[in-house]
């Protein structure tokens, strides 16, 4: 099947195309130079054309997401979709069911989404849910920041052994990238504690967060993974944590990115940095240090971040940062779920209500916005809500509208937010507005590049996967700054979406809900001799400590409908 998308205004930062009227040609699922006379024409005149959105950090599948669904029937009840045609029913405002997750990302013009926290032992559950998340291409990041093998290898200075273990684990769990959450802190939580900062050693293992980050970044580049280490820093949500954040970022400063696949140039990825940009010493003198973080980003090229923007909704927090969730539970008194994953990680789930009347939440909103607006190069920053932690991903259109309209922001700051938003941050003094080019960068291009997927994702050049979103907004006649409500509406429901060259959204309606996306994973071949030794060591530990047999740990290909291995040799 051939298509030609005609006369749209194209925003494609990876190819330096900034609002040019041009045609996009599609054949056999790919963007091509030209198509024949018989190609179906999709008229995009007076509309925006972008590559399909790329989500670098979300929580949409697996054990803790499902715990969120199970423990919050009241969240399911308030957002219900009936079955219609081929489209399945679903429910959940902050933790939607799998099918609804696929539909809603697609409706917004997103075509790729990465599950950011996969406990290796429970990887099977993650993949089972990803299989039931339609349309989207996806991948999942195994949690390694509190893993006993990793802690032991790195404590002994055995970075190569650690790399061999990780290479095996990526294959075994069908994982995509190294995820680190509160390194050593979740292990300490197994003993009822936490670590404070990057130099506080984990109990028994004696290794610090700083040593874990350094060792894992080295191992990552030794293997040559497409993505960098994906770091959720220590001290999440603590006033004064920005120093920990900057010190963590600095660890990777002199380690060179060496991916064997893709065009990544960073050696560290900082996630939901809004939660890590806090000044003060308590909630009483709490203030924004987003300018210090943005300044660091402006001066350093080895790091990129996603924001984790607060959307001021009732939502569900869920993370492998077990001790942080306990803090949240004691703060709110809401229901709380807690889990320990044997030798690997832990997690917690707590509902949360972000309120515009609350001084801290208002400041958190401002901090996220400051990160977006003070970081000069949108090639270093990505839009996320750490879904559903800071808010549901379905609020991305509203964040886009906030970024494109200082009027929208100021109305909110002056009329709805607590005065702290202005007093404890610089947000009220910033009048920068994102362009559509900037939006394309923070919602697609940057993520595709840092994930190592920019050969086929995040752009509209020849050879890219034909994942395309068309939005009904005419940049020649409409002004996003004043017409922000329209921006919000058009980015919530795309006019057309192509996935792998097929029309899945047509005239604002999801017409192909039953197609499957790829599962990206990294087929690592590192040092096979060393890996043999490492595996025999791992097998011994399995007998000693794990509740499952080594043979039952690996995930077979049957757990993916469209397995898309990335070969690393």
């Amino acid at each position, binding site marked *: 099947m051939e298509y030609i998308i005609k006369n749209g205004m194209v925003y494609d930062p990876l190819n330096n195309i900034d609002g040019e009227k041009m045609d996009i040609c599609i054949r056999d699922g790919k963007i091509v130079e030209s198509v024949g006379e018989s190609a179906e024409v999709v008229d995009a005149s007076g509309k925006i054309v972008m590559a399909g959105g790329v989500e670098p950090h979300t929580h949409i599948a697996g054990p803790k997401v499902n715990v969120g669904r199970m*423990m*919050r*029937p*009241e*969240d399911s*009840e308030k957002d219900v979709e009936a079955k219609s045609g081929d489209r399945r029913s679903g429910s959940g405002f902050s933790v939607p069911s799998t099918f609804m997750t696929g539909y809603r990302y697609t409706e917004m013009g997103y075509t790729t989404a990465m599950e950011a926290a996969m406990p290796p032992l429970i990887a099977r559950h993650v993949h089972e849910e990803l299989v039931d998340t339609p349309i989207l291409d996806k991948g999942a990041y195994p949690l390694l920041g509190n893993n006993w093998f990793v802690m032991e290898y790195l404590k002994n200075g055995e970075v190569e052994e650690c790399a061999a273990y990780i290479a095996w684990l990526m294959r075994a769990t069908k994982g995509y990238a190294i995820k680190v959450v509160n390194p050593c802190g979740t292990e300490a939580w197994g003993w009822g504690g936490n670590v404070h900062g990057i130099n506080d050693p984990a109990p028994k293992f004696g290794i610090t967060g700083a040593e874990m980050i350094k060792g894992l970044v080295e191992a990552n580049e030794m293997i040559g993974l497409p993505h960098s280490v994906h770091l959720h820093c220590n001290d999440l949500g603590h006033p004064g944590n920005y120093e920990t954040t900057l010190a963590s970022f600095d660890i990777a400063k002199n380690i060179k990115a060496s991916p064997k696949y893709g065009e990544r140039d960073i050696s560290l990825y900082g996630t939901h940095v809004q939660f890590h940009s806090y000044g003060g010493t308590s909630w009483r003198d709490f203030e924004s240090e987003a300018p210090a973080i943005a300044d660091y980003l402006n001066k350093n090229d080895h790091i990129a971040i996603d924001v984790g923007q607060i959307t001021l909704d009732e939502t569900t927090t869920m993370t492998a940062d077990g001790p942080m969730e306990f803090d949240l539970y004691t703060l709110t*008194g*809401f*229901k709380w779920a807690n889990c320990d994953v044997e030798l690997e990680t832990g997690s917690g789930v707590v509902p949360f209500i972000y309120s515009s009347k609350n001084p801290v939440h208002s400041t958190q909103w401002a901090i996220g916005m400051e990160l977006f607006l003070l970081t000069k190069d949108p090639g270093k920053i990505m839009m996320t809500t750490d879904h559903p932690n800071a808010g549901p991903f379905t609020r991305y259109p509203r964040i886009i509208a906030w970024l494109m309209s200082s009027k929208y922001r100021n109305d909110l700051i002056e009329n709805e937010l607590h005065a702290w938003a202005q007093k404890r941050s610089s947000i009220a003094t910033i009048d920068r507005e994102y362009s559509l080019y900037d939006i394309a960068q923070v919602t697609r291009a940057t993520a595709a590049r840092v994930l190592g997927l920019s050969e086929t994702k995040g752009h509209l050049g020849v050879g890219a996967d034909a994942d395309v979103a068309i939005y009904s907004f005419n940049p020649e006649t409409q002004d996003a700054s004043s017409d922000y409500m329209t921006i919000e509406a058009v980015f919530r429901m795309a006019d057309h979406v192509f996935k792998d060259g097929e029309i899945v959204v047509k005239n604002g309606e999801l017409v192909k809900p039953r197609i499957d996306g790829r599962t990206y994973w990294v087929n690592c071949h590192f040092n096979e001799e060393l890996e043999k030794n490492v595996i025999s060591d791992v097998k011994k530990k399995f007998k000693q400590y794990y509740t499952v047999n080594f043979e039952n740990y690996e995930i077979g290909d049957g757990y993916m409908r469209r397995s898309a291995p990335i070969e690393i040799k």
Partner: protein
Amino acid sequence: MIKGTGDMMSKIILTPKEQPQVPLEVDTILPDTLAGKTIDEIKSMNILYGNTEVELQEFFDVEGESGEDPSELQIEFNGDVYNTKRIGQGMTTGEIVVKGNASMYVGAKMKGGKITVEGDVAGWAGQNMQGGEIVVMGNAGDYLGSAYRGDWRGMSGGKITVHGNAGREIAEYMLGGKIHIIGNVKMLPGIHMNGGILIIDGNVISRTGGEMKGGTIIVNGRIGEFLPGFEYLGVRKDIDVDGEVMQGLFYKFRGDFATKGADGVVYTATAKNAHIVP
């Protein structure tokens, strides 16, 4: 007809043909939605039969006369609708009368108006109720005036009166309004209660006010077994709770200190409850 208002009201009578084994759900059939419709239009309104939408007339004979003003409209379920759920769910005005028993969720999310059930109601009546009035002449099931499963924000306003007995965990997570049970109740009335008033004229089996943080529970009968997390504050005479005056002598307790920030109050009539006073 309901005394005092009935004469002015227009009335739609729904006579059940049979109650199927698979439940019906009728949250579409409210004074709010019937007002302004002809009888023929009402007959073909959709209700749920299991997971299937069917027309109202498939299970009910419809007669009477509708009016333009929902507040002047009464819907009468003229018979036993023991397997019909969600009667009056979400209604804001007008009246519903049930001439027999009703199934679950009577008056759930109700904001205004009045529902009278002459028989019994099953569980979850008045769930997350915000206003209006529910009167049950028979017995009520479990979770009367409670929160939706999982929610910690329950009934916030309105009034529920049960002339018979009620089940377990009534007034769960209650925030406001008033519930009055004239008969007996089972375990855990007022569990997680945070506000409002719960009056029980009969006896309670056990665990009154478990993990309550606010609100007031008054038990005029006997509490079988009381929880240890309550502080005894002494005897009070002729109590007045937000204008609700009760004559006689009462033991006063505060709790439940099994939970943080507890400030709930339980009064029990002294006559039958000497066994729970320290």
